[in-house]
Each structure stands twice: as structure tokens, then as C-alpha cells.
């Protein structure tokens, strides 16, 4: 059996409130696994414990009890970070570094150097579409560009797991779509992704599996299509169907004992329309 990319067992995190007796339970007895190759969406309202969970997985915060592992290694060990790339929410990297210098800096932190690091930085800049901005300082980057350099920095040491916190927050629709395409691309290369997001539409488009956190507890978990498909209904979309044909189908439906729930013209999404207009 392959070991899970992330394994969280009975994780609890309690924060003391300064100068008071009460305590805040950020995560309560959480257990979940993320299998290799999956895109896992961790959802939940603000303050539900998503960020805390993520920080514990990355070893930035120690758990009160329970344990987390990354590919079988305890995530409180520094070595386990070799397999993880992380993009925090609204990151600001060093403004005075250029795109390429940023990638080299993070590469050096992972023990890379020389020509291999140079090549890797160039490849990643190309991958995220920033090769023309490689020599510009990050202070002049747009929000979308910062997120893309953030993705590149997360990937610098070729980790098998990516942890992304709100990767498209505050990015315009075109940039957001590019980031989404990049994530799907990473997935097709076999990289496991843990994604925290509020943008449910986007989560629905890219995640295989989702978990919903509420007040620190996992309230629902499972494969996306199992969770949201309506089992007893089927959707049919026709093109160039004449009114006569439609009438015939409706009659046939009624004769077969089924009920027609809705008949409408499919609409393009506002996103697709917006992208079309601003192309």
C-alpha cells in the first residue's frame, strides 16, 4: 500500500487566550488522509481551523495533541519539508529581489546550487509565464504575478506535495484561470495538492476530494462527485433540437414514468463571458 501524502491523526490544537482563563479550540480531534496524486480541497468558513491545520501540517505550529505526517515523516521534523512546497495566503516575498533572484534564494534554502539551480529557476519562470519579468523586482509585480512566482518558489525543489492557501484570492479572473490551469497541470504530473479556499466554484472545478471543517471539526469528507451529485437525476443537453423533437422527448419521458424537473437554455458562465470580452 502506498503511504498517504498527508496523514493527520487525532489532531487537536488549543490556543490559550492571553490574560484569560478560557481557551480557544482551533482544531478538534481531526483525522484525515490525503492520498498521493489527489487534489484535496479543505473548505470551511473563516475561523474554522483550516489555516491552523495547514500550519501544523507544515510544522510551523506544534499540535496540542495528535500527529501529522508528510509521506510517512513526522511533519515537525525539518527533513519532512523536502517534500512540500507552500504558498501562503496573500504572500509578500522580498520586494527588492527580482523574480529570478527569489527562485534562486529559495532553491539555495533547499540545498540546490550552481547550474542545476539556474536551469530549474529558468524552467519554472517559463512554466508560470514570468520569463519576461525575471529581471524585474517583485515590488513591481501585480497580485497575479506574485501568486505565480509564489507557485514557482513552492515547486523549486520538486516537491511531491503542494500546500496552497487561497491561491487565487484577490487575483483577477484571467489570472485566476491561469493559476487554476497550472494547478490542474501539476496534478497531471502526479503532484499531490492540498488546497484551502473559499471559492467553492473553483474548488468544484479542480478538486477530487473535499473535507469541510466547521468550528474545528471535520463535518463532511469524501469524493466530490459523491458529495454533490443528485443521484436520482440526469442532465441532458441537446444542440439544434427542433421544437417537435423536444415535444416528442417530453411525451416519451412522461410515458416512461419519469418526471421532467427543469427545461431551460444552458447559460455560459459569467467567468467565460468576462474572459471572452476582455481577451
Amino acid at each position, binding site marked *: 500500500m502506498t503511504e498517504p501524502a498527508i496523514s493527520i491523526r487525532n489532531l487537536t490544537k488549543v490556543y490559550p487566550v492571553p490574560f484569560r482563563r478560557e481557551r480557544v479550540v482551533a482544531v478538534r480531534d481531526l483525522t484525515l488522509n490525503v492520498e498521493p496524486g489527489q487534489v484535496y480541497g479543505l473548505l470551511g468558513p473563516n475561523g474554522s481551523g483550516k489555516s491552523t491545520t495547514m*500550519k501544523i501540517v507544515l510544522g510551523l505550529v506544534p499540535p496540542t495533541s495528535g500527529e501529522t505526517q508528510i509521506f510517512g515523516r513526522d511533519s515537525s521534523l525539518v527533513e519532512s519539508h523536502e517534500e512540500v512546497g507552500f504558498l501562503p495566503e496573500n504572500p509578500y516575498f522580498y520586494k527588492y529581489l527580482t523574480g529570478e533572484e527569489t527562485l534562486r534564494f529559495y532553491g539555495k534554502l533547499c540545498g540546490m546550487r550552481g547550474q542545476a539551480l539556474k536551469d530549474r529557476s529558468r524552467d519554472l519562470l517559463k512554466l508560470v509565464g514570468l520569463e519576461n519579468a525575471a529581471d524585474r523586482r517583485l515590488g513591481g509585480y501585480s497580485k497575479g504575478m506574485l501568486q505565480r512566482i509564489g507557485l514557482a518558489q513552492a515547486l523549486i525543489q520538486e516537491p511531491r506535495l503542494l500546500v496552497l492557501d487561497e491561491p487565487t484570492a484577490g487575483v483577477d479572473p484571467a489570472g485566476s484561470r491561469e493559476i487554476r490551469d497550472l494547478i490542474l497541470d501539476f496534478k497531471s504530473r502526479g503532484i499531490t495538492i492540498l488546497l484551502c479556499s473559499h471559492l467553492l466554484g473553483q474548488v468544484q472545478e479542480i478538486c477530487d476530494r473535499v473535507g469541510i471543517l466547521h468550528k474545528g471539526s471535520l463535518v463532511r469528507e469524501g469524493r466530490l462527485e459523491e458529495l454533490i451529485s443528485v443521484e436520482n437525476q440526469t442532465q441532458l443537453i441537446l444542440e439544434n433540437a427542433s421544437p417537435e423533437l423536444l415535444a416528442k422527448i417530453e411525451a416519451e419521458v412522461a410515458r416512461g414514468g419519469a418526471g421532467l424537473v427543469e427545461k431551460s437554455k444552458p447559460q455560459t458562465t459569467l467567468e467565460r463571458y468576462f474572459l471572452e470580452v476582455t481577451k
Partner: protein
Amino acid sequence: MSNQSTDTSVAETALKRAPASRGHIHPHHQSFSFARVFAIASNTLLELVRLKVFYFLLIFALVLIGSSAFMINFTFQEQFQVLKDSSLGAMSIFTWLLAVLATAMLLPKDIEDRTLYTILAKPVPRFEYLLGKLLGVLGLLFISTVVMTGLFFTVLYARQELEIAKVVQESAAMAKGMEAAAETATEAVTGTVASVSEQTAAAVKAIKDSTFSWSLGPAIVAIYLKAALFAALTLLISTFASSWIFTIVTSVAIYFIGTIQPIAREYWLANNAGTPLAKAFLALVALLFPDLQLFNLVDDIVAGNTISNILFLKTASLGVVYVTVYLFLAYFIFSKKEL
């Protein structure tokens, strides 16, 4: 999308060799890596340089020039004394101020911008992060000290040459006058001419003695060590401070307490006999508020006293011990910090 296909082909090159080259990309993780510390240190130094902190050196240059402008009526010994006193004093204040201000913002900025998360999410131990930050500041202080020393020595040398030129000119004029007299007078005057050149040589030597002396070295090293001590102390405070204002205010307060504490300690010791409890208390006070008088070799050196090697070594090792202790205390707090 039109760039979809190019994206994909680039993705091939960037990602496809992942499994094959894994061993190459992931060298065995070392529990301490100087390369990582160096990467963080040089990045910190680069940050400070690109933030243009070196502009303060211009102010130092102005102090230097200003201090030599208003002492025309002094004797050369006095002039050099004032020049050395004010230059070393300014160096001491500037390096200290730079150490406190540059260090105070390093951690809070990284935490606020979440840059710290991205760094610690890489295989970087927290100790290396702190050490790298500290070494970056120490590098900045080193460069500043070297540049200020260079400026100071240049001005001092220029004034020395000016004085020598003046003395040589005066004595040459004097000798000329005497030679003219010698043609008509007795042998006694010839002897005086010889003694004039001796006097000139003595005057030049006196000038040289009152400018450069070997003891300037220890004074400058002590200035650097004091700044290094404050960089480490400020880093320590910033690991638990809630804001950088708090860090700066605390660090400055410790500076002043550290400057006056030897006096307070003497007074206190005079009234309390050296009980073990009193000694322990004093040791704690000395750790929290370093005795800055020990680093003040400048006054002695400017006054012309020589610094014994023992005293210098004691001061230097004390500085190194303080920096090390503060660094480990900072790590102790930082390693438990919830980010």
C-alpha cells in the same frame, strides 16, 4: 487558450524529470548547513543594502568634515585629539544605531509579510534562520565600520600631511634666514642650522605620534563589538516583542542602563557586602544590561593611554560571549514561538 500548448511543453521540461533527478535535487538533509545560513545572511545583507541604509555614511562624512572645520585656533595636538574623539564617538553612535534599527525590523517584517512561512516551510531549521539574519546584520556593520574607518583615516592622514607641510615650510624659511646670517657670522650659527633640521624632524615625529597609533585598532574593534552585541540583543528582544517600536525602545533603554550601570553597581556594592545572593543578582543584571563601559576603549585611547593586550582580549571575548548567549536565548524563544 492560445498559450495552453506552450505552457504544456514548458511544463514537460520543468516537471517531467522529477522522478529521475530526485536524488540529484534532494541531497541528503543536513542538520546544519552553512550554505543555507549563508543564503539567508547574504539575502539579509542585500535587503539592507537595497533599502539604502548606507546613506547614513554620508552623515558620518559630514560630521567628520564639520568637526575639523571649527578648530583652527587649536594646537595640532588638540586638533587631532578633537578629530579622533569626535570621529570615534560618531562611529560608535552610528554603528550602534544602525545595529538596533536594522535588526529591529527583520523578524517582524518577515512575519507580517508571511515570508517567514515560506522560508520555514523549506527544510530550514529555525536556528539557521536566526543565525543567518544575525550574520547578515553583522556583515552590514562590518562594511559600515570599514568604510567609516577608511573615511576617518583619510581625513586624519590629510590633516597630518597638512601639518607636516606647514612645519617643514616654516623651518625651511627659518633655515634660509639663518644661512643668510651664517655667511657673515661665526661657526656657532652653522651649528644652529643643523639643530633646526633636527628640530623639524622632532616636530614631524611629534605630529605623527599624535595622529596614528596602534591603539586605534582596538578602539575600532571595540566599537564594532558593541554594535554586534546590540544587534544580537535586539534580535533577542524581537523574538518576543509585540511590535518593532517596543523592540527599539527596549534596546535603547538597555543601552542607557548599560552605560550607567557600573556606577550604580559600585554604589550598591559599597553598601551591600558581597553576599552570594547579591553576587547572583549582579550577574543577572550584567547579563540583561551589559556593562558598556567595558567596551568604551575610545576615551583611554584618545587620551593617549595604551590599552594592554589583556584588557583588549578580555573586552573582545566578552563581546563574543554576549553575542553567543543572546543568539542562543533568541533561539530558545523563537523555537517555541507559534507562528
